[in-house]
């Protein structure tokens, strides 16, 4: 294998692993602020991945909305939250198993079941094989989506303005 490609693949794998870790940290961390920051970290890694996949607009979109805006919304929501009492903490611990281990388990089972149901040789659509590069397909003829990106950016800006800016 081409060493260049090998490095590239390695980088991608590392980034994806980092992203997954970030996601896991987001759901596992006890402190909400830390969780929100972990989410932002995940988004940033995803954004880098997107840049690497030659989708700069998607990356900007991801960075602005997910890393920026949603973190902002989370943090402002968190700022309104009271610390939990001992009782609530205990209750939280009890349900932790169900929430963080049962949910992935259920999803996994369902996913397996679904894929079992759906696995059948796929008929090939005529013309599908002509498009070899997904990047071209996604970002080539999509002038329209540029407009959408601008709009989302603007929405993000107002999110920050409205939700984050402190009153005098």
């Amino acid at each position, binding site marked *: 294998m081409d060493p260049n490609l090998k490095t590239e693949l390695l980088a991608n794998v590392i980034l994806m692993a980092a992203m997954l870790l970030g996601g896991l940290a987001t759901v596992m961390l006890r402190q909400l602020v830390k969780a929100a920051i972990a989410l932002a970290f995940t988004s940033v890694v995803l954004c880098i991945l997107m840049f690497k996949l030659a989708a700069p607009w998607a990356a900007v979109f991801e960075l602005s909305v997910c890393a920026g805006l949603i973190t902002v919304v989370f943090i402002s929501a968190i700022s309104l939250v009271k610390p939990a009492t001992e009782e609530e903490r205990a209750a939280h611990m009890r349900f932790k198993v169900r929430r963080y281990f049962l949910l992935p388990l259920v999803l996994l089972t369902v996913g397996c079941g679904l894929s079992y149901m759906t*696995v059948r040789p796929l008929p090939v659509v005529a013309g599908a094989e002509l498009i070899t590069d997904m990047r071209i397909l996604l970002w080539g003829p999509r002038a329209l989506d540029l407009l959408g990106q601008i709009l989302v950016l603007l929405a993000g800006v107002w999110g920050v*303005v409205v939700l984050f800016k402190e009153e005098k």
Partner: protein
Amino acid sequence: MPSLLVIIPLLAVLLLNLPLNFLRRLALPAAVLFAVYQALFAMQLLPASCTACPTHERWFVNVLDPLTSVLLLAIAVVAFASVFVLHATASDEKHGFNAFNLIFLAVAGMNGLVMVRDLFSMYIFLEIASVASFILIAAQRDMGGLEGAFKYLVMSALATMMMLASIALLLAYCGSTSFMVVAEALHAHGSHGYLLTAVGLFLGGLLIKSGIMPFHGWLPDAYAAAPAAASTLIAGIVTKTTGVYALIRLVLHVFGPSVAVQQLLLIFGAISVVAGALAALGQSDMKRMLAYSSISQVGYIVMGLGVAGAANKFAAELGVAGAIFHLFNHAIFKTLLFVNAAAVEKQAGTRDMNQLGGLAQKMPITGLTSLLAMFATAGVPPLAGFWSKLLIIAALWLAGYHGYALLGIGASLLTLAYFLSLQRRVFFGLLRAGCENVREAGWALTVPSLVLAAILLGVGVALPWLIGSFLLPVKGF
């Protein structure tokens, strides 16, 4: 040029934010002007007046069909009403101005959404409208608003996940996300489990966005907690375009109304119709009651869509026409009700129906238009809502779903019951102590009320003309 409907609001937002003070005061006139322009533009495209609709242009490779123009019209009307409400209820100039910008953005997003013919573009515009809505709901930074926005955000994220997964699956298989290509592929190999999973995921996402039971958890909180202008816009049109319109468009033109899809729509529609009405019956917060009523009414639309593939062609056409007509009507009367709820909240200081009463004496316009809107929702002839419900129920009956048709009629009674209870507790009866000093709301709230009420009456009375020239051509086949 249709893409102006996306570009103008975008430019408007940029222009209004130039650092010149007088520009801020232009926000309301600019919004009203744009709404009127959009309404006129949309009416030009309605089947009655449009022989050869403009089709291709540089930015959007698409076809503007009657369904799109109906939605554009509804968006214009609701945006018109909500900027007035915003003008009347904004706590200070700065908040108001920010919200104006967000409404512009949401409208741009919705306009784009109804015009595109590509799954991924649809997703992007859907997100624009949604993101603007999250912020609008939370804009006051009060506890309720943040809670509502958070719930909407999380459930929307779930929907986003499903839709993106579906798009990814379809893209990997079909090689494109344009409606045409996907529809062809689904037509050819639609029974494959892989594609069905994709379809199911997308449907699930849209059902969350439209607030159909049991995907509706976010809706009552978001509607009830949002500031007045935001709830008017979101209840009136945002969920209708991001959820219901997208559902209609995709079921009719991309996924195809297969037997399974129809069954699903009928079942979920029926659950929403009945459970939404039952839940509304027990509410004491005016806006929360309206929110549950929304769930119930959207159920009707989905049920109408559920006969789109019926063997009886006439029933299928009636059902789709009824669903689209009800979508439009619902946008009008629900907006009217939210405008009036805003008026009551502003003038009386509360939305709790147990603390209100006899307001019709003090607020005659609000009381009367509310009554009209409620009758329209419940389907009292000759108001607009009656005809659309009639079409849907007739379609269900003709297609052989007699049980669903009877259910629809029965739920209409429930609708009337909870709305009469609302009207009695808020507007009729003795004037409640503490409400003596309530006055009629200002022009900024009564003008949209009257305009919307006139549309309701006008559409109802003009139905015989609309049915041939507008309703049946709009069915979208």
